[in-house]
């Protein structure tokens, strides 16, 4: 691969980790290389600048700015104003939340209020809670939590698909409620997927107690265990066999002697596509490998290359694999 190609991928933010390392080594190798890199980057940004500037509305931004500073001048409830302003923006960046929590430190006497957030983007949204626990929201997931936890417990409410990384604090239990279940944790990492009347919890680290809101039936889950709950059934803990349960957050798909049946269903989930086969025997072929942040097409190419007897065709979001005719 030539250097311009690497730089071009880097500028489009489609380069892989390995490609970035190759490029970086080349760039720092000599002053000349650094200059060449910088000049190509400059042409790239300069060429689209005018069009890109049009995407931003400075008048609206200044209006917002004026609103914020006029509220600030009244010297009251600074954080409330900022919080309500941020709520208007659908995707609140993590940096903003950090900003908000630093305000909280300065305004200790302010009473707690509820912060609600919905991830309307395709990208994972990261929310930092007041105790620095983190919640990662999948597309369309919702969270609401107090701006300040009370001293007895940390209560949050979620809906949809989320991953929680909870700060350990024995004295202040962490409670996650969804419409279907309640999860009590002390300090752990776990995945919650909740949709109409069903929910699943997979524990990545530590342990949690899952209680059904409807029947109060409960189960304790340890590392690498999962529970699938529907409203009127008992909760049973099973070993989690889904190694790619966090791929929506990490972008990493790992296969370890995995049959294509599972490989395809993991790919379908990750890329929101559908894969069909012409012959069920294809499902029993075995694949091993790790793929990080690849485009769907790249993974398909890799699979096709790994199985010389297979070929595939893609129409929109439907991919069909078939045996090559001899």
């Amino acid at each position, binding site marked *: 691969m*030539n250097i*311009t*190609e690497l730089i*071009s991928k*880097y*500028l*489009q933010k*489609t*380069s892989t*980790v390995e490609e*970035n*390392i190759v*490029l*970086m080594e080349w760039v*720092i190798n000599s002053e000349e290389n*650094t200059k*060449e*890199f*910088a*000049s*190509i*980057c*400059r*042409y790239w*940004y*300069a*060429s*689209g*600048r005018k069009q*890109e*500037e049009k*995407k*931003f509305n*400075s*008048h609206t*931004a*200044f209006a917002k*700015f*004026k609103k*914020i*500073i006029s509220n600030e001048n009244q010297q009251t409830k600074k954080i409330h104003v900022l919080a309500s302003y941020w709520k208007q*923006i*659908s*995707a*609140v*960046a*993590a*940096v*903003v939340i*950090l*900003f908000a929590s630093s305000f909280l430190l300065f305004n200790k006497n302010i009473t707690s209020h509820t912060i609600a957030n919905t991830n309307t*983007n395709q*990208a994972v949204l990261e929310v930092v809670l007041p105790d620095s626990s*983190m919640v990662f929201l999948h597309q369309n997931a919702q969270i609401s939590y107090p701006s300040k936890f009370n001293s007895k417990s940390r209560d949050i409410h979620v809906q949809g698909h989320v991953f929680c990384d909870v700060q350990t604090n024995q004295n202040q239990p962490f409670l996650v409620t969804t419409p279907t279940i309640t999860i009590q944790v002390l300090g752990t990492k776990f995945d919650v997927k909740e949709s109409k009347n069903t929910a699943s919890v997979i524990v990545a680290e530590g342990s949690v107690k899952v209680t059904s809101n409807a029947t109060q039936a409960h189960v304790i889950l340890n590392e690498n265990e999962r529970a699938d709950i529907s409203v009127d059934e008992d909760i049973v803990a099973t070993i989690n066999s889904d190694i790619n349960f966090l791929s929506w*957050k*990490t*972008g990493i798909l790992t296969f370890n002697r995995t049959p294509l049946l599972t490989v395809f269903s993991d790919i379908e989930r990750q890329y929101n596509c559908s894969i069909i086969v012409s012959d069920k025997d294809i499902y029993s072929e075995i694949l091993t490998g790790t793929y990080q*942040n690849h*485009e769907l*097409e790249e993974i398909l190419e890799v699979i096709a290359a790994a199985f010389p007897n297979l070929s595939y065709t893609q129409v929109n979001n439907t991919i069909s694999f078939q045996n090559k005719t001899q």
Partner: protein
Amino acid sequence: MKKKFADIQTNQDWEQYFELIYEHYHASLCVFAKSFVNDIDEAEEIVQNVILKLWEQKESLCEIISLKSYLYRAVRNTCLNYIKHQKIVLQYKDAAWIKLKEIESDFINPYQNTELEEHINNAIAELPERCREVFELSRFDGLKNKEISAKLSISIKAVEANITRALSSLRKKIEAYKHSEQNM
């Protein structure tokens, strides 16, 4: 423009001062921020926070020698911090990428250079038809490679190849122009 800023500063009409900041720098700061982060909203949010921070310190504004470089510097640093923080939790940006971003933003003069831009636009106009089309969809319309490939019914590899081709051709043309200018 410098004088305009200075006049207002002596009058201490801060609101007018900041209105000028929005008028002159806001959009290009946002574009600059967007080269670090992927999202228009995130970029705007970062710029808004940088300007709000400046507002909080407006009394010490006279100590800032160049407002423009202060703003670009602040946006750059905020973006880098933001990316580094994201990297830790999301693990989707790697160390090499951040290093490249740092080098790039150190070298790039984000100030508007209309003459250079004019040459770039001319060079783009001279690209072969398909190549120009792909490059413009990527740069001007902000389409992802996947979207371009669907729109033009060509493979993603072909999209990538065309963008690479466009960039090397731009580079050759602009280096040649710079060279001829030096010799004049």
